[in-house]
Structure formats: structure tokens, C-alpha cells
């Protein structure tokens, strides 16, 4: 079908470039520069979807961001995206879109039955009906609603597109490139300010693109083009189209989405699909314009009923007629602009003006062009199901209560203009308390809260001259404040037509005996009657009315519906609109894709991945890795067909019999220096630190002020005023902040410096009965005998020319050492250890074996030090100094912490010595007790003891001290297991700790 609604000589589209696209499977043609909406209308397609609740046919209502109906499912380059406004989507070759909200098809829709049952679907219907009976919700209602409702389908595939984030700082951010945005940007830029000018559409100029005005002897569009091309050349200006400033946050932080590639068939290589801008601006100008207000009458949601400004935009920008027999229904002068455009293009409109006898230049012009105008006339109801076919019109009395005789006029579209609503969303989000302006029956920004200024029609100013004047002035003043420059640009002369006053009338009464639906909210199917019901049922606050009726909710956010809703509530309640107040505007102003919000922080990029210097050795040697915080650590090294259990058992066993080596680079390391370093440690750790000699390490536990264990680790005195602290992998960052807090805030008199050295040192733990023999071969010049390097001793050594730190500390409970070298030598160290260790049957071991070794030794770790336990619970009470004070000590004397039957760590062995015990299971006295069965404790960590060759677990058990030898049950409802167990000492291997000292 040809583009039968396309004009030959109008519009800004590129007729040289024809574009083919598909809608609901059918192929159409448009031009470059079209939106999906303009191209469909050019092809005479007005039925685009079904409404949310009643599934009534839906067409186009607007021409941009205000569009409440024309939401489609878009297909682009093998991906699909829901919630796309056809009025915003630019046409590209191969575009495919389908309707949403209709099943099985847009022309025959099962859900439309709701429309004929509408008596059952008044306000609050969902709340009232679907709550009962409860059992019906999952089986009947929800699946039905899910199928019949909803605005499109989200893709469940991985989004292969790229999204970026950008941070920008500027002097002046200007949201909107209409007359006020252009004028203020120009004035500020010429005065040296760093300016960002953002335009939501692809074309700059806003209302100038479709209005008949003259600025400095140019048309509005020519003037806009000349300003933009000059701004684009200026180094201090960023000009962005397809960019919506959607949120105004604290401290002048604004967020904007730039649709970089959505208008192209495919994103270019190395380009993002969208870019999210975080802009911190010293000053902000909101020049977001205003949106035309609908007039409310019967069946005003019929396809073909649309905003008169949208009809004008389709005509002037896209060269498209929204109809060939137009009716213009207006309460102000704006409708005449549309009517004049129609007649200039050979189409005869009829204008219905609700005013009795308005006089203005533009009305005179319309009359002189021969346009048929009916004053004191209104549209009572539209007729036609899938498209307007005719309208019932009538004369209206001066008090707007009585309708005259109904006449039927044939028409194919009804262009409505109910005056203008300023777009104050950004100002409101900034914290600006908006105020009601009686002259325009709408809210405008009040006193500025942050550094924002609203200009032009967004501020309720509807003459071009005043808009330009105030905007040039604002751009100049704001930039002067920031740059101290004083370059003022001259103000162009403006020619525009003067308007007469608009009519406050906006809602046509129902004719006698008729029950037409008169819609307020087109996206959510909220009608006048719904608001009436809500108020009758006692809802008073506008926020409650909104939620009960869904007025102004969803993607539309009340752009077209808000004010009429308020007007209605105030009328019924007999209050003025400002007393009713408006609902809160929250960001985002328009829907923002999740991809843009997430940006590049997806998958492995959501946080950095840390790898030790030995990582590639592990990789080459079949390590299976596990995430340990941000680190990747070898969990086990797979040999042949081994599974995790078999491999970790082999590795742990080898540590107990020969020698193993484990990568411990990930442990947190903090370098502590200063004359008061020992004093700091003495306050931070629970045990005594003042007398630790140089060359010795000590195990320490640190608490939070509430007495809960925060972390543990060893700290070594390297020299007189120099200590090396280790922390657990997980707590490394917190411990550093903790130390910095006490040094900077609490005890600034302590002369100590702390700095993280986690990345600076590579660490290898060498553990097992043969570890000393290996160490001696690694450091032939050092005396590493039991006397030369005793347990908890420290020395420096020479590892084949590389300086190394050697600590005799043990996590596995075996004779063990930790060797540290500078990170760059980590792999060298590791390879030397493996090479020389071969004769001692060395094997690398991963975190799984490491856990096994520490669990069967009864060493507490993260699963016991879980932020809920105190030292006693972990059998660490021996480390609590009685002689000195330390962080958290006072809390330990709290009543609950000193209870005699306090929980304590114990060992747990299954009676059958076979059944492994799930971590997190509960311990109970009687497995058959009625529920809830009193819980005595929980399993914190489980392993297969390689020493005893049976399962072994650690548990935190109430009165654990007196429970050794008791028989209890482990219950795991999740795994459906009941296991009879015996409570034993947590030290299941070498309870006297002889091996580490051997």
C-alpha cells in the first residue's frame, strides 16, 4: 500500500531514502527521519494495540515522550525489547515491531471481552476481586492476567549489546532544546561557560520545528538550526540529541540516557547501544517544555482521537496527515494552529471551540482562510471502534452544564487541545515545591531547591518573546556567576501571534441516558467514573486515589492524565486543585533500560577479579577455582577422573603424611609502623602485645566494640617499630578501615602508620611433617632447625637470590611455614618449591583440603567467626587479657555473654562413622519431638577427617562445654536427613598441639 497519508511537500524527512519495515508481520515503507509512529500513520495504520485493562483498541495520542498508547514490542538485530514507544522509535531499515496487550491478535482480542463486562471492572477491581478466594490466585487469576495484560515481553536471553556509563562535570546543564534551551545555552556558551545541552528527540528545536514564528528574520526552525550549528563548533559546549535527562538527584547530580544506536539497524562495532551520563552540574536549566492536555469526552480513547499538537507535529515534521476529515476540538488558541496547517495542505477541518466568543489574531486568520468554526461547541462522544468514524457534537451552555441537541459529524480524526501542562518533573525531583498557577490551571516550579531554574513553557510562559528574553538573560546571568565573564549576546526581534485566554472547561458532561466511558488516563484505562467511585469509597489523599485507581502510574507517569485527574478530584471534593496537591514525581521521567543502568558492570565485570601471581601455574596444573571474595583461589587440583571429594582428601592426606603447598597470597596483609605500633596492637587485639620480641609472631583475635569477634590472624614483629599483620581474606578491607578509624578518630595521639600490603607479597604455605626438610633445601644458608626457627618464629631468608620472609606459623596443625616474596617473584618461588619438593612427594593443595585440615584440627575460621560469636564461643577465651583493656572488652561482661550455659564450639561425629553431615543443619536432643523442635546448636563446618577417615564437623552448641560425650541428632529438613551423632572435642587431631612445635 502506498503512503496514502503522506503529503508531497511538507516535513523534514529525507525522501531520498526509503525505508522498509514490518509491523505485525506486514511490510510497509517510510522515509529516513520518520518515527515508527509517523511511518505507520503515513500508511493509514491507526490501530496499534489494546488497552491495559479493557483491551480497547488503541491508536496514537501523541508524537513523542508523552505517548500513552502506542507501546510496541521491538525486534532489532536478533534481540527483542518491550515497552518501546512508537512515537519515539526512529525508523531504520528492517525494523520489526508487534503490538502488545493483545491476544491472539490486534484485530481480534479475547481480552476485549473485559470491555463489555466493564461493570465488573471499576476502580479497585483487582484489589477487590482477585483477593478471593485465595486459592484461585495462582491457578486461575494470575495466569489469566499475565496472559491478558502486561506491556510486552522481556527477553530472557543474554543481552549482547554494550552499554556504557559516563561521568561529566559542567557549569550548566540544559535539559531540552526548545526556544528556552537554545537561547540560554547560546547566551551561556558565548559567555564562556561549560555547557551541556540535551535534547530528547533526534531533532533540536522543540516547538520551533512546528510553529509559525519569526526570530531575527528567520523561521523558528532556521533560527534553531543556526544556533545549534554554532554551539556544535564551540569547544566549551556538548550538544547531545536522543538524550533524555530523566532524573534529578542530590547535589545537582542529573542522570541522562543517550540512545546512541537505537535508531540504527545494528550497533556499530565498539559503540554502545546506550550511554548513561552522570552529570554533576553547577547550575541546571530545565527547559523541558510542556505537554498538551487532553479534553475529556465520551469514548475519547478511540483511535484517531489525539492531541492537536501531535497532529501538527506529524504534519510539519513528518509530512503526514493524521486524517483527511479532521475535527479540531479546543478550549484555547492552540487548536487553530493545527487547523491552519490542515487547510494550508488542502484539508478542510472543522473547529469546535468551547469558548463563546474568543478574539485573537490566529482566530481571525483561521476565519480568513475559510475554516469552519463552531463556538460554544463540544465533542460529546466519538464513534467508531477501531478508528473514529464520526463524532456527536453539541452546543454547550455558558455554565458548561447543559448540552444542546446532539448532531453527528463525519470525521476520521479528532484533534484535541485542552491547553498546556508544564513538564515540571525534573524541578519536582530536585525538591522544588511546586505551586499552582491559576492562569494556566497547572503546577509550575516554585522556589528553587537546588541550583535549578525552569524556563519557558515548562515554567508556564507561553509567549515566545518572553521565553527568549528570560532565557537569554538566565543563560547570561548563570554563566556570569560561574565564569565572571561579561559577554552579552544581543537579543533577536521576535514575531509571533498573540493568543487569547483559554477556557477553564475540560470535561464534557454526559448526555442524558448515555453512559460513555470518558477516559482520564489512557495508559491505565482510568475513567472519570473510576475516580468518582474511589472518592465515594472514601479515598481522599491524591496519593491513595492514584494507587487505588492506577491513575498516572506505569510508564506514562501521568504525563497527559495527571492534571485532569486532579481537576476531577478537586471538583468532586469541592476543593481547589492546589489543596488536593499532585502526586510525587519520581525518577525516571521515562523508562530507562536495565542495560543502561547496569552499564559495563555485568558478569565478571561486576567486580574486579583478583588473581595471585601463581594463578597461571594453578591453571596449567588443572586447578579448579573457587571465588573467595574477589579472589580466584584453587579449590583443588584435579588428577585424572577425581572429583572434588577424592582430590581434596588426597591433598589433605598428603599434607598429613608428606608435605603440601598452598597459595595463601589472598590473606590480607597490613604493614604497621611507628613508635606506638605495639600499643595499637595491644588495644586492637585481645591478648598482650607489648612484650613480643623482634623476630616473633603471635596469634591474635580482634573484637568489635560489641564484643563479637571481628577477625583473627598472626602479626609478626619485623623490627623494633615495624609489624606485619595478616587478616583473613574476607575481612582484609574491613580490618584496615577499622585500624584507620581508631588511629584517626579515637586515638589520634598514637604515632602509627598502617597500609595494606596484600598485593605486594606472594605467599606460600608449606605444611606437613617433611616441610622442614624442604625448607632447609630452599634456604640452605639459613638455620631453620627447631632451635633456629622455633614455632611462631620469623626470619628473613635468601631464596636463590630472592629476598624472602619466612614465618613458622600453621593453619593446618602440622609443622608448617609460610614463605612470602615480593609478588613479582611469586611464581618463581612456587616453581622452586614444587621442583625441590618433588623428592619429598610435595603436592599443591587447594581451599577444600585447607578447610579439611583446619576443621579436624578445630581451628575456628570464617564459618565460626560469623559475626555472631564471642571469643568464648570459639574457645578463644584463653586469649583474653585480664590485665589490660582492649576494644570490645567491656561488652564481654554483659549478662548474656557470661551465661554459664553459653554456646561453645564442639566436634560432631556421626555414630555410624559414615554419614556426612550437611553444613547448616541443626542439633536437637530428640529427633521425634513435636515441632518446633528446640534447637541446641548448628553445624558450622563439615569435612571428611583424613586422620580418622570418617566424617567430622564443627558445631556451635549451647552449653557446649558440658556436652562432650552426649548423643544428639543432626536434623536437616532441607536434605531430609536425621543423623544420630556424638559430641566430641573440637580438637579431633593432635589435641595437645605437638605437631606444630615438633
Amino acid at each position: 500500500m502506498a503512503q496514502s497519508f503522506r503529503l508531497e511537500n511538507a516535513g523534514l524527512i529525507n525522501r531520498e531514502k526509503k525505508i522498509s519495515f514490518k509491523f505485525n508481520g506486514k511490510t510497509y515503507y517510510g522515509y529516513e527521519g520518520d518515527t515508527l509512529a509517523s511511518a505507520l500513520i503515513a500508511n493509514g495504520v491507526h490501530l496499534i494495540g489494546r488497552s491495559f485493562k479493557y483491551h480497547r483498541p488503541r491508536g496514537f495520542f501523541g508524537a513523542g515522550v508523552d505517548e500513552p498508547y502506542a507501546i510496541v514490542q521491538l525486534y532489532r538485530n536478533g534481540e527483542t525489547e518491550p515497552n518501546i514507544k512508537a512515537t519515539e522509535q526512529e525508523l531504520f531499515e528492517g525494523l520489526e515491531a508487534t503490538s502488545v496487550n493483545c491476544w491472539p491478535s490486534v484485530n481480534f482480542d479475547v481480552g476485549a471481552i473485559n470491555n463489555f463486562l466493564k461493570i465488573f471492572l471499576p476502580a479497585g477491581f483487582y484489589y477487590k476481586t482477585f483477593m478471593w478466594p485465595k486459592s484461585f490466585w495462582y491457578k486461575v487469576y494470575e495466569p489469566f492476567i499475565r496472559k491478558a495484560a502486561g506491556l510486552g515481553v522481556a527477553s530472557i536471553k543474554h543481552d549482547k549489546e554494550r552499554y556504557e556509563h559516563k561521568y561529566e562535570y559542567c557549569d550548566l546543564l540544559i535539559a531540552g532544546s526548545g526556544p528556552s534551551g537554545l537561547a540560554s545555552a547560546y547566551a551561556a556558551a558565548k559567555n564562556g561557560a561549560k555547557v551541556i545541552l540535551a535534547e530528547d528527540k533526534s531533532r533540536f528545536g522543540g516547538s520551533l520545528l512546528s510553529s509559525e514564528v519569526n526570530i531575527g528574520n528567520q523561521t523558528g526552525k532556521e533560527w534553531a538550526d543556526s544556533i545549534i550549528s554554532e554551539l556544535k563548533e564551540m569547544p566549551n559546549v556538548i550538544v547531545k540529541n536522543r538524550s533524555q535527562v530523566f532524573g534529578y538527584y542530590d547535589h545537582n547530580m542529573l542522570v541522562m540516557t543517550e540512545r546512541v544506536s537505537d535508531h540504527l539497524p545494528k550497533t556499530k562495532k565498539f559503540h554502545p547501544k546506550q550511554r548513561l551520563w552522570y552529570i554533576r552540574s553547577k547550575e541546571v536549566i530545565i527547559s523541558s517544555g510542556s505537554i498538551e492536555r487532553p479534553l475529556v469526552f465520551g469514548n475519547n480513547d478511540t483511535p484517531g482521537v489525539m492531541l492537536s499538537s501531535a497532529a501538527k507535529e506529524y504534519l510539519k515534521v513528518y509530512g503526514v496527515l493524521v486524517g483527511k476529515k479532521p475535527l479540531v476540538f479546543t478550549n484555547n488558541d492552540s487548536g487553530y494552529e493545527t487547523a491552519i496547517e490542515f487547510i494550508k495542505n488542502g484539508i478542510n477541518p472543522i473547529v469546535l471551540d468551547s469558548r463563546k466568543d474568543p478574539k485573537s489574531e490566529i482566530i481571525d486568520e483561521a476565519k480568513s482562510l475559510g475554516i469552519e468554526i463552531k463556538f460554544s461547541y463540544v465533542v460529546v462522544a466519538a464513534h467508531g471502534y477501531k478508528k473514529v468514524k464520526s463524532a456527536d457534537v453539541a452546543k454547550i451552555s455558558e455554565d458548561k452544564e447543559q448540552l444542546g441537541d446532539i448532531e453527528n459529524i463525519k470525521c476520521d480524526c479528532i484533534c484535541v487541545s485542552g491547553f498546556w501542562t508544564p513538564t515540571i518533573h525534573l524541578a519536582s525531583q530536585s525538591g522544588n515545591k511546586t505551586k499552582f498557577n491559576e492562569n494556566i490551571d497547572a503546577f509550575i516550579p516554585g522556589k528553587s531547591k537546588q541550583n535549578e531554574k525552569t524556563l519557558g513553557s515548562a515554567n508556564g510562559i507561553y509567549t515566545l518573546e518572553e521565553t527568549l528574553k528570560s532565557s537569554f538573560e538566565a543563560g547570561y546571568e548563570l554563566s556570569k556567576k560561574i565564569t565572571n565573564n561579561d559577554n552579552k549576546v544581543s537579543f533577536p526581534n521576535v514575531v509571533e501571534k498573540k493568543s487569547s485566554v483559554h477556557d477553564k472547561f475540560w470535561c464534557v458532561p454526559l448526555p442524558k441516558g448515555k453512559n460513555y466511558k470518558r477516559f482520564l488516563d489512557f495508559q491505565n484505562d482510568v475513567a472519570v467514573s473510576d475516580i468518582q467511585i474511589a472518592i465515594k469509597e472514601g479515598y481522599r489523599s491524591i496519593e491513595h486515589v492514584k494507587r487505588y485507581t492506577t491513575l498516572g502510574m506505569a510508564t506514562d507517569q501521568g504525563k497527559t492524565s495527571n492534571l485532569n485527574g486532579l481537576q476531577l478530584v478537586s471538583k468532586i471534593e469541592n476543593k481547589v486543585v492546589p489543596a488536593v496537591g499532585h502526586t510525587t514525581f519520581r525518577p525516571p521521567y521515562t523508562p530507562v533500560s536495565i542495560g543502561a543502568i547496569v552499564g559495563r558492570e555485568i558478569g565478571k565485570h561486576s567486580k574486579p577479579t583478583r588473581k595471585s601471581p601463581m594463578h597461571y601455574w594453578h591453571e596449567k596444573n588443572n586447578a579448579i577455582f573457587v571465588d573467595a571474595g574477589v579472589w580466584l583461589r584453587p579449590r583443588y587440583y584435579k588428577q585424572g577422573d577425581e572429583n572434588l571429594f577424592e582430590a581434596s582428601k588426597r591433598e589433605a592426606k598428603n599434607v598429613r603424611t608428606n608435605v603440601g603447598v598452598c597459595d595463601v597470597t589472598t590473606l590480607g596483609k597490613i604493614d604497621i609502623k611507628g613508635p606506638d605500633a605495639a600499643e595499637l596492637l595491644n588495644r586492637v587485639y585481645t591478648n598482650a602485645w607489648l612484650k613480643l620480641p623482634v623476630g616473633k609472631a603471635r596469634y591474635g583475635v580482634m573484637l568489635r566494640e560489641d564484643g563479637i569477634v571481628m577477625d583473627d590472624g598472626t602479626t609478626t614483629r619485623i623490627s623494633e617499630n615495624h609489624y606485619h599483620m595478616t587478616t583473613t581474606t574476607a575481612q582484609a578491607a574491613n580490618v584496615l578501615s577499622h585500624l584507620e578509624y581508631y588511629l584517626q578518630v579515637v586515638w589520634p595521639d598514637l604515632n602509627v602508620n598502617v597500609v595494606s600490603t596484600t598485593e605486594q607479597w606472594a605467599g606460600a604455605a608449606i605444611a606437613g611433617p617433611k616441610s622442614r626438610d624442604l625448607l632447609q633445601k630452599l634456604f640452605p644458608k639459613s638455620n631453620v632447625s627447631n632451635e633456629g626457627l622455633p614455632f611462631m618464629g620469623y626470619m628473613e631468608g635468601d631464596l636463590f637470590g630472592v629476598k624472602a620472609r619466612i614465618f613458622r606459623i600453621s593453619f593446618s596443625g602440622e609443622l608448617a611455614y609460610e614463605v612470602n616474596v615480593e609478588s613479582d617473584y611469586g611464581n618463581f618461588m612456587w616453581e622452586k618449591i614444587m621442583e625441590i619438593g618433588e623428592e619429598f612427594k610435595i603436592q599443591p593443595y587447594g581451599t577444600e583440603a585447607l578447610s579439611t585440615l583446619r576443621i579436624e584440627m578445630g581451628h575456628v575460621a570464617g564459618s565460626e567467626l560469623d559475626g555472631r560469636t564471642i571469643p568464648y564461643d570459639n574457645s578463644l577465651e584463653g586469649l583474653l587479657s585480664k590485665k589490660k583493656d582492649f576494644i570490645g572488652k567491656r561488652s564481654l561482661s554483659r549478662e548474656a555473654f557470661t551465661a554459664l550455659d553459653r554456646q561453645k564450639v564442639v566436634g560432631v561425629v556421626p555414630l555410624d562413622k559414615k554419614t556426612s553431615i550437611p553444613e547448616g543443619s541443626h542439633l536437637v536432643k530428640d529427633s521425634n519431638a513435636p515441632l518446633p523442635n528446640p534447637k541446641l546448636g548448628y553445624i558450622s563446618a563439615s569435612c571428611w577427617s583424613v586422620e580418622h577417615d570418617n566424617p567430622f564437623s564443627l558445631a556451635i552448641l549451647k552449653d557446649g562445654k558440658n556436652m562432650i560425650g552426649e548423643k544428639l541428632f543432626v536434623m536437616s529438613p532441607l536434605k531430609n536427613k536425621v543423623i544420630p551423632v556424638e559430641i566430641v572435642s573440637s580438637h579431633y587431631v593432635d589435641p595437645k598441639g605437638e605437631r606444630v612445635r615438633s
Partner: protein
Amino acid sequence: MLHIKCPHCGMRSQNEFSYGGDATVKRPELNKEISDQDWDNFVYNRKSLRGKHWELWQHLSGCRQWIKVERDTATHEIFNTLKANEDIS
């Protein structure tokens, strides 16, 4: 996102900082007797004021200094910032 003036580094965005609680709470001195009530007040009891409030922040991804920030807890307006060792006047 807040814009916080670090006394050491200048204006920085909130995502460089971490929040550290009420800056007016003073830790009891070490090795001094203290009643249960006073200790509880130090560890647990906070006022959760609406309005102007001095709080601690750490410039974690910057200079790592703990700083004092006077902020309105309702409007997020920041009135003043101080170094950790400067007294709130």
C-alpha cells in the same frame, strides 16, 4: 548521589566514601570503670536525628581519611566538613 567536600581532597562523589555513623559519640577512655548503661549508650544507643547531624565518613577510595560531615538527614544538604582531628564547634 551526594557531593562531599573532603577536607583533604576537595569535592568528590559519594561513591568514593563510606558512611561511619554518628561523629559526636565519644569512645569511653580505656582502663576506666564505666556503668553498663553508659557502655550500652556508647555501643548501641543512637538518636537517629532528623535534621542537622554530624557524622563520620571515610574517604575510602581516595585519601582513606576519616572525616566529619555535617549533613541534614532529611534533605541531604551538607553544611560543613572537618578533618577527623578538628573539633565540632
